[in-house]
């Protein structure tokens, strides 16, 4: 009888412990860590400098300095839009907009680790790295982290590559969208930046069919395309496909009050040919919405205090009484 009683106590205790540990683990804060993996066909790239910017809240509202930009966020579930948006925001970031919240160099395994990340949409940009005679250039990416995301997130970097002795060429192409052409300026000025310094400036207009090509550019530099003085009433998006920068100005009636911003840059990814390596896109595109169907748990763990105390008190009393009874029995 006594043996059965002890066994029951152990079982009850185990159940309570299990319940408590699960409650505690549920209530633990959800800080996320991010591992960026820059691994190519030729192996991991060491020493590439990755910067992490918090650019948007999880609902897609631009943050801080990025909120001042005339950038249309668009559909965050559309991978093509995401790629252009990442490229455009990375350009602004390269041009000095916003401060990275963290910066890390990739280690010998090609990994760069970031920790203590809270919910939000992050922009990841990276500098190029070299293996042998090949330069690997990471593409910028957007990453959405919500409290539903895994605690540890791995992102495989997409990249392009070219030979370090190769000369590269870029074409810039101007596209107007959703406008009546009455508000459209006769020309726009576009700058080519070499590692964030202005290398060349050209005017695009109908006379040159809104395009321009730069040849014989050194592959050792990072090249950005910049639209200077974004026309009032337009948003800008810069996409890079192969070696063509498409600078799209989208007419938006709701932006009548916005003023002309200085500069827009485009993340270059100085590429002449896309990498043949296929890489899993970052989780950005797969996670939707920051809200769940449940309201956030905003309570401290007070109720286990009562459960623990009352259970403890009961067990203590039961133990005390049964010990007294067994002592009495032994005396008799």
């Amino acid at each position: 009888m006594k043996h059965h009683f002890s066994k029951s106590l152990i079982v009850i205790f185990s159940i309570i412990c299990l319940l408590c540990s699960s409650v505690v683990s549920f209530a633990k804060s959800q800080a996320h860590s991010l591992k960026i993996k820059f691994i190519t066909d030729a192996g991991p790239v060491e020493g590439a400098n990755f910067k992490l910017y918090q650019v948007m809240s999880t609902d897609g509202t631009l943050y801080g300095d990025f909120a001042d930009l005339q950038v249309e966020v668009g559909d965050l579930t559309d991978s093509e839009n995401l790629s252009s948006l990442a490229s455009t925001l990375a350009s602004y970031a390269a041009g000095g907009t916003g401060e990275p919240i963290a910066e890390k160099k990739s280690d010998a395994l090609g990994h760069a680790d970031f920790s203590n990340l809270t919910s939000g949409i992050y922009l990841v940009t990276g500098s190029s790295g070299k293996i042998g005679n090949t330069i690997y250039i990471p593409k910028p990416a957007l990453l959405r982290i919500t409290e539903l995301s895994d605690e540890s997130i791995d992102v495989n970097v997409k990249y392009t590559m070219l030979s370090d002795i190769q000369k590269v060429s870029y074409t810039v192409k101007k596209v107007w969208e959703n406008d009546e052409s009455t508000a459209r300026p006769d020309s726009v000025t576009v700058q080519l930046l070499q590692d964030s310094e202005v290398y060349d400036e050209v005017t695009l207009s109908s006379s040159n069919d809104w395009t321009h090509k730069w040849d014989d550019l050194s592959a050792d530099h990072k090249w950005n395309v910049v639209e200077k003085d974004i026309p009032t009433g337009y948003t800008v998006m810069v996409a890079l496909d192969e070696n063509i920068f498409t600078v799209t100005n989208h007419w938006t009636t709701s932006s009548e009050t916005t003023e002309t911003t200085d500069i827009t840059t485009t993340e270059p990814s100085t590429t002449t040919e896309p990498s043949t390596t296929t890489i899993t896109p970052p989780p950005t595109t797969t996670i939707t919405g920051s809200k769940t169907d449940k309201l956030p748990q905003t309570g401290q763990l007070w109720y286990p205090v009562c459960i623990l105390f009352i259970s403890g008190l009961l067990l203590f009393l039961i133990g005390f009484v049964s010990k007294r009874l067994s002592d009495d029995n032994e005396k008799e």
Partner: protein
Amino acid sequence: MLVGGLLMVAAACLTIYNLHEDSVAASASSKVLQSLVEERNKNMTSAADSDLPTGISGEIDEENTIDPDTPMPTILVDGTAYIGTILIPALGLELPVADDWDYTQMKISPCRYSGSAYRGDMVVCAHNYTSHFGPIRHLQPGDEVIFVDALGREFHYKVEKVETLGPFGVHEMVASEWELSLFTCTLGGKARVTVRCSRTQE
């Protein structure tokens, strides 16, 4: 007896942990509040002289009317965006409000759960720490609540009612007609104490 004793010790440890967490949250929010108010005052001063305040996102409305669809401007403190501060005189509370919510941020400050003060449908959530929204269950109809945005504009509200919603009452929470809702967990942690407020003219 031993097991019972251990459980009581565990209860005591959890109590100490909760009290400690509460005190850490109070100190964290007070630190953020100080920086936020300083930055806001600085921006307001510079805004009076120039066009846009530095370190702040958003636009100053010259005509003192706010487009309801304007995104709420934010001030960055330690890398986190805050949309303003909330003041509840009846409880002696003044707290920063983060732009977006997550569990880590709620250990520091109340957070915007949804909506916008400009649109008149803002919902703010916070932990039930005594230094955060724990005491809001004591609010009475008529009590004043003031939200001050990142540009220093004040939005005055009065408490209309205090109700309790279930943990899955997301729709009831966000799709209400109330211009401001504040919520936190009940002591039991299961339901949400919700304070509904309507806007007043100062």
